[in-house]
């Protein structure tokens, strides 16, 4: 089963500590070697993106940035055997933030990708 992990947090005033980035790279290597991590990438602030909306039968395109309290920071795509395994990988990822970036706060959303097992 596949899960997408979305990391959401307030846009930080300072770049993430180099130590955290190194630890994230290492975790990514481990998860790839374990055959669990299929794809991942960082996401730029909403200023670099746009929003395409349909309201009242009309389509509109709005360029970023958007006044949101949180930004999507990154995504990762995992293939695991159970939901608990996906939670474990996501927890490892979040613990790195907790341990290596004092005062940082954020959340990782785990969404299950619809698969043959859901029918």
């Amino acid at each position, binding site marked *: 089963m596949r899960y997408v992990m979305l990391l959401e947090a307030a846009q930080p005033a300072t770049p993430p500590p180099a130590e955290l980035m190194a630890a994230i790279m290492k975790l990514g290597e481990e998860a790839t070697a374990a055959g669990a991590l*299929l794809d991942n990438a960082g996401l730029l602030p909403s200023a670099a993106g746009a929003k395409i909306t349909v309201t009242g039968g009309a389509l509109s395109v709005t360029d970023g940035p958007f006044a949101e309290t949180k930004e999507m920071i990154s995504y990762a795509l995992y293939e695991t*055997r*159970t939901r*608990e395994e996906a939670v474990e990988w996501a927890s490892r990822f979040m613990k790195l933030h907790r341990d290596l970036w004092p005062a940082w706060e954020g959340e990782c959303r785990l969404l299950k990708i619809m698969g043959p097992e859901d029918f």
Partner: protein
Amino acid sequence: MRLPPGTAIRCENPGVSGADVGRVVEAVYRIESGRIIAALARIVGDVGLAEDLAQDALLIALEQWPLRGVPDDPGPWLMATAKHRAIDLLRRQENYRRKLATVGRDVELAERESAEAGIVDALDDHIGDDLLRLIFTACHPALSTESQVALTLRMLGGLRTDEIARAFLTTEATVSQRILRAKKTLAKERVRFELPPASEVPARLAAVLGTVYLIFNEGYSATAGDGWARPALCEEALRLGRVLCGLLPAEAEVHGLAALMELQASRVGARTDAEGRPVLLLDQDRRRWDRLLVRRGLAALRRAEELGTLGPYGLQAAIAAEHARARTAAETDWGRIAALYGVLAYVAPSAVVELNRAVAVGMADGPAAGLAIVDGLVAKGELPGYPHLPAARGELLERLGRGQEARAEFARAAELTRNEVERELFSRRATTP
């Protein structure tokens, strides 16, 4: 039970019930089991014993985590607990002295603790190597194919005995027996926990890849029973394939097998219709192919090609890639597929490959050319009892307008197959003109 040093136990999620913690324990064990068993095998020198000790650690976690909460670092906790079990065991064994001596330490009582730490430290740099040793041991030629499969799923996949039994449509007792017998064989044959010598690597690697692909195929096309596919086994084989790519990045066939499995798995969702009936490759809705798996498969194939000449798995992946690249069935480059089958028939000759080549030639050069190859197989008495021989012959005959003969072939295919959904498909073609 003594807790591993430096273990912080913190209940981060007090709302988790006992049963849920059990699932967490299992999830962590599955992620770590291969590494843990491999590390333990390095300490105790016996894979079967290492697996027993890893299971002990799992049981300890199942007892303790529901009471004390899930440790903050559950993976390292399991590993440390398992290593301590192993060292406790060594301490009880006579050869403890000798083991310590090999680490180059005196066995003075005062130094015992630090010597133990020495063993543990010596382990940490070898995880990749140890996993590889574990895979080669699980697929050791002294073991039967069934045992290789069971041990691989158990030790590298962390699957429970009942899960393996369900996947292979057999009883838990049978699988337990198989695993027990395999462990005994490894001990009896004094199979050492080591990498095969260079001269044996090609044959041993072929056995490993063969086991993984067997697991994949068991999931991809059930040979018996109601299920057309058992996706969990496919996913497990895919995961093992990806693990092998990380462990043996320079082996073309490892990437070839990964590519083949990713590409075949990309079609799982399109292989059945809404009623669960099989849909053949050329009739599949290609929009339902899993693009991520296609992309990964093509990337793995590219790596295999960069590493040298394609072997049997790489060639099959190259054939699967031709289908993946064609936007519609009509755009399939059958000439290239027929040529690839020609190479495959040379590298790994088999009647099944020849049958597939016949189908491809039938598409590239017309049904008569394909039928000539199939008839050659029939004349040699190849593939008796193989349902896809009459099915392929039926297809070619139908395209030649020989409907009656075609229907007879499909009836024969329906009679031969052990897969019920397949039988339904062949029966339909045997009766509808």
